[in-house]
């Protein structure tokens, strides 16, 4: 029954983590910036209506959105939640299903690898420019590095998926 490949080190079945299991620390990494966006925007609205204007709130929101959204992409990949058309997947089995799974994972790996290379390329070009936002001087380089780490992790997750069995 169990056709999962076995890890040589641990003799445990090697497979993708079950759907919708995301480590708690990852929820914190993506969730805290999201809650920050929520609070900043809420305080901005309240402040605007009470004469207390917060300068540079959009810059903070943009930085927090990047942290939240880049880690959200990793989480969506980890929990195998990316949207796909299932009309053929649901009707295929055996070797065809395995081929489609490897083919699709290869595509995912190449796409996110290309995004990483593109992101790193620009980060290297801007290395000495010391980019930062206008009002609060939020540095862009660490944000670019964080985004690249997330896309590289996503590419890694697709690479792993190419070599494990189980449903797509």
């Amino acid at each position, binding site marked *: 029954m169990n056709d999962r490949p076995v890890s040589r080190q641990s003799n445990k079945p090697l497979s993708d983590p079950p759907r919708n299991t*995301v480590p708690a620390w990852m929820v914190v990494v993506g*969730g805290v910036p999201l809650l920050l966006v929520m609070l900043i925007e809420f305080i901005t609205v309240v402040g605007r209506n009470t004469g207390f204007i917060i300068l540079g709130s959009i810059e903070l929101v943009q930085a927090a*959105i990047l942290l*939240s959204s880049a880690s959200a992409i990793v989480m969506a990949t980890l929990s195998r939640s*990316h949207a796909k058309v299932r009309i053929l997947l649901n009707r295929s089995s055996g070797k065809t299903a395995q081929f489609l799974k490897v083919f699709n994972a290869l595509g995912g790996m190449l*796409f996110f690898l290309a995004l990483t290379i*593109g992101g790193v*390329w620009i980060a290297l070009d801007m290395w000495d420019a010391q980019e930062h936002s206008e009002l609060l001087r939020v540095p862009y380089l660490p*944000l670019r590095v964080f*985004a690249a780490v997330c896309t590289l992790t996503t590419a890694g997750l697709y690479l792993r998926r190419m070599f494990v069995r189980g449903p797509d």
Partner: protein
Amino acid sequence: MPELSSGIIGTTVLFVLLLAGMPIAVSLGLVGLVGLVFVLGFEPALIKAGVVLIETLTRYELGTLPLFLLMAHLCSSANASRDFFDAAARVVGHKRGGLAFASVGGCAAFGAVNGSSLATAATMGLVALPEMRKRGYSDSFAAGCVAAGGTLGQMIPPSGALIVFGIIAEQSIGKLFTAALIPGLSQVFLYFVVIWLVATLRPAMAPPSERSGWGQRMKALLRILDVLLLVLLVISGIALGWVTPTEAASIGAVGALLICARRKRLNLKTLRAALQETLVTSGLIYAVIIGSILFSVFISVTGLAEVMASMATDSSLGPVATMMVVAVILLLLGSVLDGLALMLLATPILLPIISNLGLSPIWFGIFLVRAMEIGFIHPPMGLNLYVIQGIAPDISLSRIFKGVVPFLMSDIFHLVLLILFPIMALWLPEVMQP
């Protein structure tokens, strides 16, 4: 011309990759990237990918989506879906077809919290379907009601699909939300007409339930007051231009947190679950947006959309007939592609055609989401049908589809109305956000 042929080949390859089950984001992004490599070269294509990545992930408007999702998950945790259905069922449940009216009304109200068709169908299905079956409603009709009602989640603002459309088509999300109000409410009205017709012509399919006393009704209505006020604040704030959609979403999320806390349903477990669901869903949509923007850049570089736009202008069909043809094509494509894929494939190609025909992109966003919604309830894709079958496995797909057919007919009528009278979508934004 070589660019044009690469555009046609790229679109064909995209269609094949989507059908092969490659994630939508990856299919769009890969075709866009490889296409740009062919047309522009390796270095510009990769640099464009890097630029799109950072520009997309730092877009201020992108905050709208996860915050509305967070609001929806927190409202779900606060049991809002059950409360909406209960209140509607107490008020109209004693009428013939009353629980069906309550289901659609509950879907519309929950749709104002939740921007997803599938989530609305699933959540309301869990609440309304067992109740309707228990009260002697026909399985097929009850399932059809909830499957069709679920599509309201996509149209009634805040809508996830409209946020995605706004970002990829570079249109105001606030205007799109305002434009969706009349089409959303008229869709609810048409569903009510369908229910009334079925309950009148086939009374056995939708029998009346016992009448609730006024005390019970008031109690049920008071229970939804907080969520209802929050929804009204969020929607009116956007429609009247008081706040940006992102700010409105933050008000919604903070309000939902407070409602959860007031109902003693806020704890670390609930918050973690809501954040996780929010991040996973928004992660998949962010990836799709990045892929879609790369595909749009590729299509615009090839000139394919412009050629199609001038073909549409040169033909003597005129805007109404052209849009009827587009609607038929979208409905046919909707048989094999899911809504998101359909929107992302269609937007970069059709948007220039819409502009050339002198039609509004805001109207087009509403039209596209309406066409997508129909795809949610017609086979073979019809994802809402599968969601309902997941909730009630003893009702066969064919019976669910039979129940959804009257609603499907009203949907097609509604889509035609939207084509004939674009003012349905354009009047409110003009009046409220001149």
